[in-house]
């Protein structure tokens, strides 16, 4: 898993949120810490 052994650059990505809006990781750079939660829907 990324970053488990040493600090690694987080791969940038763009994905669509539940309202259909585009979210790009690099937009948060220098502004906020980002916590990514990978989930399985409806479980």
């Amino acid at each position, binding site marked *: 898993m990324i970053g488990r052994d040493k600090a690694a650059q987080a791969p940038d990505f763009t994905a669509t949120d539940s309202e259909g809006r585009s979210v790009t990781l690099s937009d948060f750079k220098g502004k906020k810490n980002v916590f990514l939660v990978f989930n*399985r*829907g*409806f*479980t």
Partner: protein
Amino acid sequence: MIKVGTKAPDFALRDQNGKTVRLSALAGKKVLLSFRPMAWTAVCHDQMKSLEENHAQLDEMDSVALGIGVDSVPSNKAWAESMGIRNTRLLADFWPHGAVAGAYGVFREKDGFSERANIVIDEKGKVAFARTYPVAEQPDIEEVLEALRSGGGRG
């Protein structure tokens, strides 16, 4: 898209309750494969409801309608419950993603989901009817029921 008269590729997928459905186990019955792009959207909702509403008629014709989409089993379960679907099995073509849609030539590589399509398979496992619809269009269920009745139709 798969051609009328060809042998329908066999598959095994899980329904909304996690039970496996194998096409070849339904030999001797007519099978309607109703592919739809995405769960939780309006046209797909109406498409699945039309299968449920015609369940008794399909049963009388010794036919089984199966909804197929790329959504997961838990998503299909929640979706079926929200629509009040009890008699129609919704199959999860989730992993390998869209593999069954691909085998029937209705997977949209660019979008990651399937076409809206109805495919009728006869008692001997041959494709008797195959049609795709615009993603925003509700399929004509009467045309499909007629294909099931006559055992064939347009391709």
